[in-house]
């Protein structure tokens, strides 16, 4: 779109003015305060109108409308002629009045085509927006440059940010990063469930708190309903118990009636009983004096008397039987009298023991004799073997130890011999050294003396005439002589030392020989023994020695064994003899002769007869004892029988009775009388207890009174409970009633208090709804902000990636034209970092490193490049620049000429 000309009817200070423009660059110049900025706003107003773009539904005027009201009384508005890219000419008529903001668009032919444009609700006609494809804000941001912003480039970040903002939003002041930051901040302010003090979390907690409160209330409601049911149940139970209490009271009355009725009957019965008892007492009068205390004694005595009589008869029969048996035993015993003469301590068992012992000792004696013969034979054989081994082994010498000792001694002697040998060798070496020292001392001493003599002689001969020189020579000769003497002394000492060493060596050699001889002495002794034994080697010798040692030990053992066997044989023989004597003596006592051949049969016969005699004897003794005992018993029981009879007679006399049976009858009657008297007393006591000291007539009256209040069926009910039982039942019901009433009262109180300190469900639901609504709003806002953030990030990234290459081309084209041949390439990366390449060096330079002028050029290139990208590509966008140029009019003409620009001057 090219602006052709404009007519200003009235706009600020400008009025009635018409200006023509040309294609390309127009330089509008004027003096200060002439209205250049006013003209720029006028053109903007004609293109986009005076109404605010951000409130399309309302007729709201831009702020400048008030500011640019015409100074003079002119019509507020103007006309703009423009030509579109397709060659079509259009006129825009606009009036900027406060109340009237008309807009009219005509063709060059005067046809009004306003209706073909979009009309907003606020009445605005969208003209420039329709042709240029951008809003007023965007046009102002991109196509109107009010000042030189390029000078604001400070660093790489500033440049990149501004390019990014310009490229993406069309406005340098608007930052994508800041927008994202704003959204993030808004999201942060709402918070998340991890931020405990932010609205989102607070709203969540509030919702949870109300839900919990509701849950608690509902739980209490459930409890409440249970309590109400329980209360109703208890109320019903109370009513039942009241009825039961009434029934129980009736049962008590019935029981009391029955009890009184029973009492009256019993009292009447007792009265009848008393009459009968008293009649019986009268009949038994006279039996009260019988000594019934003696009845037991009498009975006991009568019983004892009968028992004694019976016992006495038995004793006498037993005595007769015992005496018969005694006579029979005496006869048999006399037949076996010889066996009774034996020692009473010797029984059949003893005889058997002696016989068995005798036979056993006999066998043992024979066995010992056999063993003694065997030992003697063995000892003889061992003695022969000792003789065969030789006499050398007959002594007490331990040849094993001796050989071992000799070996160890030999090892010690060898060691000592070697030590002495080494010592002798060392002494020999020392003696050689001493010998050489003697030779050296004698040689050097002789040489010294010889030289001293020669020097002294020479000096004496040759330097006699010159004593000054001869004196030192004599001194030298003296020194040499002293040296020679000293050597001689040293040689003498060495000689003495050599002599001493020689003696020591001799002594050592002697010692060595002595040691060797000592060692050989033991070996010699062993060698003699071996020769005597005929052994060819030491091992053979030692084996023979060991064998002889064993045989000698065996001989000793056999000798000991032989001695032991002899002792045993003597002891057994003695014991055998003792037993033989005893057996013989026993046989002889019984009249039997000793015979070793028939000893066993004789001892068996003796043993059998002895046993029979002893049995008869024992039986006889027992019978004698029994007879004595029976005789004593007979006497004692006869005496006791006599005593009992006398006592019985005494008792009968006292009771005035003639026999025990009549005494017993009198006692029985006496006892019956006592029983009747006791029964009378008991009945009297029972009567008193039952009547409670009230007469029977009174009880009858009371029974009548109780019966009047009682239903007949209860009187007839025989199965009813007793008074105590009925009273217990009544008490139990009363207690149950009290407990149930108390439970009921407590439950009623609990029901009344059930919802104290609890809010109503409606209140909780209302608060919960509010809290949930609030939470939902916050959640929606969070979601919306997240979506906005994500979408903006994605769109921004995508746009940056798409835009960067396009912008690179657009900027490069303009920048290279503006800077001439100084630079050859512009590079803008997807992050909008910008660099230029120098033509000469080929070096890439970052924008912030460029000179101020170059940066200005780059800035304009960027602005126009972005304008190309953002605006409608089919319709070029007019640009309104405001540049401060300090120059005179002639220079301005030259400048315009140089840049093919047209000059337009605003008149004052």
């Amino acid at each position, binding site marked *: 779109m090219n602006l052709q000309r404009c007519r200003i009817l009235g706009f600020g200070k400008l009025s009635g003015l018409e200006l023509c423009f040309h294609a390309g660059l127009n330089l509008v110049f004027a003096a200060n305060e002439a209205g250049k900025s006013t003209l720029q706003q006028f053109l903007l107003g004609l293109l986009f109108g005076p109404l605010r*773009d*951000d*409130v*399309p*539904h*309302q007729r709201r005027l831009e702020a400048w409308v008030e500011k640019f009201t015409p100074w003079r009384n002119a019509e507020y508005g103007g006309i703009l002629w423009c030509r579109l890219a397709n060659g079509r000419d259009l006129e825009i008529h606009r009036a900027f009045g406060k109340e009237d903001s008309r807009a009219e668009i005509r063709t060059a032919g005067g046809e009004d085509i306003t209706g073909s444009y979009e009309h907003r609700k606020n009445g605005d006609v969208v003209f420039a*927006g329709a042709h240029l*494809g*951008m*809003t007023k804000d*965007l046009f102002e941001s991109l196509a109107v440059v009010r000042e030189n912003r390029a000078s604001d480039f400070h660093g790489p970040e500033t440049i990149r940010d501004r390019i990014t903002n310009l490229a*993406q*939003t*069309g406005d340098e*002041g*608007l930052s*994508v990063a800041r*927008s*994202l930051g*704003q*959204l993030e*901040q*808004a999201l942060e302010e*709402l918070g998340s469930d991890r931020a405990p003090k932010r609205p989102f979390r607070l709203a969540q907690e509030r919702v949870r708190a109300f839900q919990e409160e509701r849950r608690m209330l509902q739980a209490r409601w459930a409890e*409440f*309903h249970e309590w109400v049911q329980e209360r109703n149940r208890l109320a019903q139970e109370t009513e039942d118990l009241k009825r039961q209490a009434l029934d129980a009271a009736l049962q008590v009355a019935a029981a009391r009636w029955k009890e009184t009725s029973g009492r009256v009957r019993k009292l009447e019965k007792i009265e009848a009983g008393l009459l009968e008892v008293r009649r019986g007492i009268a009949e038994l009068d006279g039996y009260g004096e019988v000594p019934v205390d003696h009845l037991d004694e009498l009975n006991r005595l009568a019983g004892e008397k009968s028992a004694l009589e019976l016992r006495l008869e038995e004793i006498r029969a037993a005595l007769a039987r015992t005496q018969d048996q005694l006579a029979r035993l005496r006869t048999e015993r006399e037949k076996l009298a010889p066996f009774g003469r034996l020692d009473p301590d010797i029984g059949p068992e003893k005889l058997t023991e002696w016989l068995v012992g005798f036979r056993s000792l006999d066998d043992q004696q024979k066995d010992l004799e056999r063993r003694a013969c065997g030992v003697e034979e063995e000892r003889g054989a061992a003695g022969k073997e000792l003789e065969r081994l030789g006499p050398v082994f007959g002594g007490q010498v331990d040849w094993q130890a001796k050989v071992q000792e000799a070996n160890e001694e030999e090892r010690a002697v060898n060691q000592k011999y070697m030590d002495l040998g080494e010592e002798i060798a060392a002494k020999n070496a020392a003696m050689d050294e001493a010998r050489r020292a003697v030779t050296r001392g004698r040689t050097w001493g002789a040489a010294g003396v010889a030289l001293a003599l020669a020097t002294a002689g020479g000096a004496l001969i040759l330097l006699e005439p010159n004593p000054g020189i001869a004196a030192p020579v004599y001194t030298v000769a003296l020194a040499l002589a002293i040296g020679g003497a000293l050597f001689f002394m040293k040689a003498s000492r060495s000689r003495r030392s050599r002599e001493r060493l020689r003696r020591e060596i001799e002594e050592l050699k002697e010692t060595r020989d002595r040691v060797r001889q000592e060692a050989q002495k033991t070996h010699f002794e062993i060698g003699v023994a071996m020769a005597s034994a005929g052994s060819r080697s030491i091992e053979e010798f030692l084996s023979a020695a060991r064998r002889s040692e064993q045989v000698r030990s065996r001989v000793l053992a056999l000798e000991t064994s032989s001695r032991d066997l002899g002792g045993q044989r003597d002891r057994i023989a003695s014991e055998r003899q003792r037993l033989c004597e005893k057996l013989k003596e026993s046989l002889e006592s019984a009249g039997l002769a000793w015979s070793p051949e028939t000893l066993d049969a004789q001892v068996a016969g003796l043993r059998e007869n002895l046993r029979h005699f002893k049995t008869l004897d024992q039986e006889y003794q027992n019978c004698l004892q029994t007879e004595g005992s029976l005789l004593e018993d007979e006497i004692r029981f006869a005496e006791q029988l006599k005593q009992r009879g006398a006592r019985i007679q005494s008792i009968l006399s006292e009771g005035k009775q003639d026999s025990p049976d009549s005494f017993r009858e009198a006692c029985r009657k006496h006892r019956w009388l006592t029983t009747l008297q006791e029964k009378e007393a008991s009945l009297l006591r029972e009567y008193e207890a039952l009547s409670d000291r009230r007469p029977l007539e009174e009880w009858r009256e009371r029974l009548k009174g109780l019966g009047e209040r009682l239903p007949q069926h209860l009187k007839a009910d025989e199965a009813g409970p007793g008074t105590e039982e009925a009273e217990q039942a009544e008490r139990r019901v009363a207690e149950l009633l009290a407990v149930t009433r108390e439970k009921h009262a407590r439950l009623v109180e609990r*029901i*009344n208090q059930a*919802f104290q300190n609890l*809010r*109503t*469900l*409606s*209140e*909780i*639901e*209302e*608060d*919960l*709804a*509010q809290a949930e609504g609030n939470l939902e709003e*916050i959640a*929606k*806002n969070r*979601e*919306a*902000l*997240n*979506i*906005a953030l994500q*979408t*903006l990030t*994605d*769109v*921004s990234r*995508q*746009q940056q990636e798409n835009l960067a290459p396009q912008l690179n081309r657009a900027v490069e084209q303009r920048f290279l034209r503006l800077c001439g041949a100084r630079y050859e390439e512009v590079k803008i990366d997807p992050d909008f970092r910008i660099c230029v390449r120098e033509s000469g060096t080929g070096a890439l330079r970052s924008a912030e490193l460029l000179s101020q002028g170059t940066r200005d050029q780059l800035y304009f290139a960027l602005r126009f490049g972005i304008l190309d*990208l*953002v*605006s409608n590509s089919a319709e070029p966008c007019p640009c309104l620049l405001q540049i401060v140029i300090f120059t005179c009019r002639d220079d301005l003409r030259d400048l315009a000429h140089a840049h093919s620009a047209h000059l337009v001057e605003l008149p004052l």
Partner: protein
Amino acid sequence: MGLDLARKIRFIHTSDVHLDTSFAGSGLPSKIGHRKREAIRGTFRRILDDAKRESVDFILIAGDLFEHDRITPDTTAFLIQQFDNLRPIRVFIAPGNHDPYLAGSPYCEESWPENVHIFREEKFRAVELRDLGVRITGFGFNRTHLAEHHFRWLDSLPADAVNIVVSHGSDLGRVPEGKSKHGPLTIDEIAGKNIHYCALGHYHQLRPLENPIDATQVWYCGIPEGRGWRETGPCSYLLGEVEKGEVRIQAIECGQYPFETLVIECDGFSTREQIIDAILQHRGSKVTPRVILRVRLTGTLDPRVDLSTAEMEERLADAVLHVQWEDRTLPALDFEALAQERTLCGNFVRALNARLAGASAQEREVLERARLYGVQALLGREVRPR
């Protein structure tokens, strides 16, 4: 019983009192909800006072006296005490879908005064008031939803007394929008059964049922105290008279805290004072110190206007009992024009417009907010979540 009665019979017909109801659905805070519930009690007490003052013979309560799930023991005690004070005026209660006769219901309490009769069965049962020559037949809901046409179970009544029927039910002839149909009925199920007056409950608007069949008068008595934003009209109960077989019905207005909705067009407003002024201009009509007001803001709101509702509520504290805000204003942004731009902002708007095109209603709301917040940020304006 004969119809020639010596004196007039007077009665009150009310229903849908909804004691202890919750106003969570209306978005009221608990503080206001509590006041409103107290108001319901107060209005009900006033109806009972009117009954004593007018010396009515009985009161008909056609269901929904309270809310089964929410009624507190305190309210039960309140009802028992109020009815007890009412003696000898008799009270006939026909439980509805909100207060059905269920286990655990306060109706199961045995402490109701003798002058109270509760129709406990899902059958029409009659109570003969021989001293008045009146037969009152009632039906009680035993469940929270009754789908059957229960009036079909009602046989023709004997003509030896004034027959009055009380029940909860939904007239299928004119169902209010959004109202559920509990105990559906039609006029031909009521008419022709010797009924003089039929007291209905369930619909909250006062209205008679048109009866082209006979002289039976069938009325919904209206709600004594509004329960939500849809019940903004006058609240009422009915005072009836029966004389010589003729029934005369008079509606008595009641209610303490009505619900009202104001729609404020915000186009051209640049300050919140203008909004407050616009609300207060309604003084004398909808805005009173007792009203619970919903202000719905519409139109295009200047982005510079700070819509801090808390501050506006403070300004309106003396004018209304409670104000509830509903911001339906549109942002003063031309998203269509922005979408035409070849800038980042244009790309952003286009991206979100593309998502909006295929979004559900719920998603739309979030996406529209995302678009608004993004554009606000891109235009360098303050991002202010709603």
